[in-house]
């Protein structure tokens, strides 16, 4: 565990209904700063829906999602913020955001939450480098004087662009794609596309990075590279991770904390070892009926 951890994301009573279907049902959990939190569960459990709520793509039917910058002491202001119509509270070196009140692009631009997608979404016709440059949009936009300075070729913008390229290069080195920087993203093999999507999200400077099944479809070697990358991000301590994963081995290997969903409800929450042996989790994963859970529980208990 990464030293003293405090809460970065706090989800309270999150519910998302689609017509009659309750995709997420009264879910509450916390993700801690500097940790890798995994969200697992069988197919259709509502994991992606939780991500879509956090990142502003869906407006949740009910619930509160609070994200802090700086330190968890920002949560002292949560009740006042909830009662006010504001989206966020900003104090000295810390801030608190109510994600359910924010538009999707603001969740990234202001609250600094970045994400990847279950089915990779790169800018396929743009080069690998361009993909990373798009992610630094706000930095470059400010440097270009909202286009006006950039249009006349101000040195300030050129310096900023050089810095952005440098940053992209650093990430490309890290994900081993420097050689292919000038090739279209769509031409990359699947595993490289996954890593590029993560690097792109990281280029937007997030405090929380949400990864939707990053290991899906990877071969063992690529999977190992991915684990290394994620653990590297965690070690730097700037960005906390929230990870949806199917592959139990990945989850057990790299996560600090696991939340298990089944039919939109949280059925387990704890360290990997605890979750692994939780009879409810085993039952959900093996597809056992509710009545049989007791039996399994008894079995595991032995």
């Amino acid at each position, binding site marked *: 565990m990464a030293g003293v951890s405090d809460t970065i994301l706090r989800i309270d009573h999150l519910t998302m209904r689609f017509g009659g279907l309750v995709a997420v049902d009264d879910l509450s959990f916390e993700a801690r700063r500097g940790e890798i939190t995994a969200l697992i569960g069988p197919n259709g459990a509502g994991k992606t829906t939780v991500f879509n709520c956090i*990142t*502003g*793509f869906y407006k949740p039917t009910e619930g509160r999602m609070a994200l802090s910058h700086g330190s968890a002491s920002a949560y002292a202001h949560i009740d006042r913020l909830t009662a006010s119509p504001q989206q966020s509270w900003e104090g000295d070196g810390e801030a608190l955001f109510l994600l359910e009140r924010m*538009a*999707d*692009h*603001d969740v*990234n*631009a202001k609250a600094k939450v*970045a*994400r990847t*997608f279950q*089915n990779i*979404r*790169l*800018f*396929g*016709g*743009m*080069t690998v*480098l*361009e993909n990373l*440059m*798009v*992610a*630094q*949009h*706000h930095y*470059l*936009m400010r440097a*270009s004087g909202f*286009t006006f300075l*950039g*249009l006349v*070729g101000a040195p300030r*913008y050129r310096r900023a*662009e050089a810095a952005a*390229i440098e940053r992209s*290069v650093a990430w490309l080195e890290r994900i081993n794609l*420097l050689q292919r*920087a*000038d*090739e*279209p993203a*769509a*031409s990359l093999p699947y595993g490289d596309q996954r890593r590029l999507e993560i690097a*792109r*999200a990281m280029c*937007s400077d997030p405090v929380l990075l949400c990864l939707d099944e990053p290991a899906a479809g990877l071969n063992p070697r690529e999977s190992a590279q991915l684990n290394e990358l994620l653990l590297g991000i965690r070690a730097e301590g700037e960005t906390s991770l929230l990870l949806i994963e199917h592959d139990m081995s990945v989850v057990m290997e790299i996560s600090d904390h696991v939340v298990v969903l089944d039919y939109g409800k949280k059925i387990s929450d704890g360290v990997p070892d605890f979750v692994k042996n939780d009879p409810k989790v085993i039952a959900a994963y093996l597809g056992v009926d509710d009545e049989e859970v007791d039996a399994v529980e008894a079995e595991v208990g032995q």
Partner: protein
Amino acid sequence: MTATTKGAQDTPAKPSATAGRPGPAGGIDVAHVLKDAVISALIALGLFGVIMGLKTEQAPGGLVLEENWERVIWAVGIVFVGRLLLNLTIWRRPGGKIDDLMPVGLKKYSGFVGTAIGAALILVALTLPFLPGAGRYHVDLGTLVLTYVMLGWGLNIVVGLAGLLDLGYVAFYAVGAYSYALLATTFDLGFWVCLPLAFILACFWGIILGFPVLRLRGDYLAIVTLAFGEIIRVVLLNWSEFTGGPNGIGQIPRPTFFGLEFSRGEGGFADYFGLDFSSMHRIIFLYYVILVLAFVTHLVSVRLRKLPIGRAWEAMREDEIACRSLGLSIVRTKLTAFAIGAGFGGLAGAFFATRQGFISPESFTFIESALILAIVVLGGMGSQLGVAIAAVVMIGGFEYFREFEQYRMLVFGAMMVLIMVWRPRGLVSARAPSVYLKERKKVGADMVSQGHG
């Protein structure tokens, strides 16, 4: 949300993908080619059989059905033989990808060829009025072509970069033209003062159009923009007190050369420079004005592409959802694309008004929008050079075929079909990256998304 369309299987290159597959020994699969031709002929029979073979005739006592199978046989025969020949010649490519039709030798030098063509075009454009044999007609035609080049480049920002299909672009051309005409005739403002105003007003109307269509994509966006173009035209037509209605606005002031009018006698351009008065002076001057305006449009578009705003447009064309997840506001991105694209249309419109001296709603019909869009699509969405070539070919071609009045549209229809079959993504379809590390590699057309809106 539909997945972004990528990969060759999504290009409309179907006919060749199925036809003319090489046989086992690298030769021609005769059975396959024959089968393909027979199927095409059968389809042709189904189509032409009823349309050309049967005809109702007025006869005493009602209608009678007249048969004419000879024509049908001709039509079916042409399809059969044509298909066979195409399969045996042009469509004989492994994999049959349309892009591969470009000769390999040419492809290797395509970067160089592009630069050479571009340089040649610029050279001709700069010297056109002074080329031997260039008369008033040629300079006038050059002015017209350049107007469309400029309009094409303006629309290219919206359609080619941002991927928003805009069928009502002529509305901004009209806004620019009427802005200048009304400002100049009512407030006595000069052309050079009105130019930025026309730009700003057109931008403003671009935003007005942008708001209601923010959530629309694809066909829906196309229909609403088309309607917008028509609304502007109908308002211009009916708001007689303000716009002069169908009579339009006349006596629009001509531009001056730093305050010198192109008039005969004392204080005119010719008088000031001690030249003999000639009506060509103004025409050449107008030519250079539009050349400069077009050049500015080009310069600004190329610059914008390399700025974060331009990258945001292209990223939005590629994947809107990914953009949102990276903090790009789709509202801002779409509105800026509409506004800046519209602004250039407005500049071209102001130029049109001052050149003509008279404008009426008739000049701003849907067919203009279609023509500009055709230039962008044929040229290759997003490509500056392609759009310029397409404008030269289309507008120049229109003039060339003027004598064949009736067949003009037919020829152009055929040409468009041919180009779309030959190069479905337009003449210059590869995309040049906006930034590169070592090498500016072109991005193949099959990778680039065309946008959903």
